[in-house]
């Protein structure tokens, strides 16, 4: 039995004390949401290994999955954004002074639009574990940060994807901020050998379900 990881320290002064106020108004603006298109994403933005003159150091991976709402309908043509540390566990961000090397050929940001099936796809490198100061000897497991838009602003999701079999998963305060074990498991991708490209990249599958009501749900009488 692994002991629970220490708490995520930054919560203390930032978590509201008051309860969230429920909004049940079927005319709420939040039941609709922003849209994006081909002007917001270039064709190369989904390949984080081709943003510089040289190739980044690291294990090349492909990450793909479907974005759906809670009724299982694909979220089509919506924006997916990805950011991450490099193979050594360092972000290309000035505030990250972790003494691991920066990679001049890797910025670690990408975006794409979901297709008609709700599928997103990225090519990138597997990030390294990341040292932080939450507690003594604190290491974050390798993770990818993701941002998703649904059909409503209520369905907005920013989250993190993890890699299967990582021994640091059991020790991570951020992953364990999700207290339900089954829910935590939904943040861990699956290695999918069929997605691996011979002599090129390893494939991971990670499907996403966006929560929250939308105007179309109200129209169909599902929500209340």
């Amino acid at each position: 039995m692994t002991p629970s990881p220490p708490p995520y320290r930054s919560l203390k002064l930032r978590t509201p004390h008051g309860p969230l106020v429920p909004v049940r108004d079927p005319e709420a603006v939040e039941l609709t949401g922003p849209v994006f298109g081909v002007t917001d994403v270039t064709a190369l933005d989904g390949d984080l290994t081709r943003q510089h003159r040289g190739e980044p150091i690291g294990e090349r991976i492909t990450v793909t999955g479907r974005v759906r709402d809670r009724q299982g309908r694909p979220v089509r043509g919506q924006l997916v954004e990805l950011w991450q540390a490099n193979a050594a566990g360092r972000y290309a961000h000035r505030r990250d002074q972790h003494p691991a090397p920066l990679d001049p050929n890797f910025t670690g940001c990408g975006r794409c639009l979901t297709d008609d099936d709700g599928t997103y796809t990225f090519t990138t490198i597997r990030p390294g574990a990341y040292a932080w100061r939450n507690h003594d000897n604190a290491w974050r497991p390798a993770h990818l940060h993701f941002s998703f838009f649904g059909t409503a602003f209520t369905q907005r999701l920013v989250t993190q994807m993890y890699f299967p079999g990582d021994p640091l998963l059991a020790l991570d305060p951020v992953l364990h901020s999700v207290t339900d074990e089954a829910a935590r498991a939904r943040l861990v991708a699956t290695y999918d050998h069929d997605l691996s490209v011979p002599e090129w990249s390893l494939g991971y599958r990670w499907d996403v379900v966006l929560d929250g009501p939308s105007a179309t749900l109200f129209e169909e009488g599902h929500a209340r």
Partner: protein
Amino acid sequence: MTTPHAPTPSQTIGPFYGHALPATGGAEIAPLARPDTITLHGYVYDGAGEPVTDALLEVWQPAPDGSRTGAPGSLRRDPVTGLAAGRDGVTFTGFGRVPTDADGHWAIHTLPPGGVSYLSIAVFARGLLDHLYTRAYVRDDPDDALLATLDAGRRATLLAQAGPHRTYRFDIRLQGEDETVFLEFE
């Protein structure tokens, strides 16, 4: 086993989204040279009253004519360089994105929302497990369904204060005394 449609949990945005999410023109929702442009701005504070310097705000609102369809083009990219290209200066997309600065301050330029008296805001930050929804009301609205449910003190946290030159001040307090009203949608 999980059901096929169980939602994916939220995780914190963390401190290092800066190269990925903010974009040139993200805060400039109003098309260029529109005389009806308003400025909505304020600070984000934590439970100790300190400014939150690594928050990201997203804004979603109807167009002045009440349309809620939005439009692409909030985060345009230059296909030549791959860098952020800014907006086209013509299209009203209804969506904006702005990080707080080193003072914890943010500002957007937009057009007044049509049909409602509020702009919807999502707050993301290190230390928030899930983003927080709130609303900046640019005028008090006795007919508004949400405001009607709140007592005067709580209601005041959602009312942006009109200032000179079509500016509106809207501070967000994540925790503690005068904590902003945050919303959930069911």
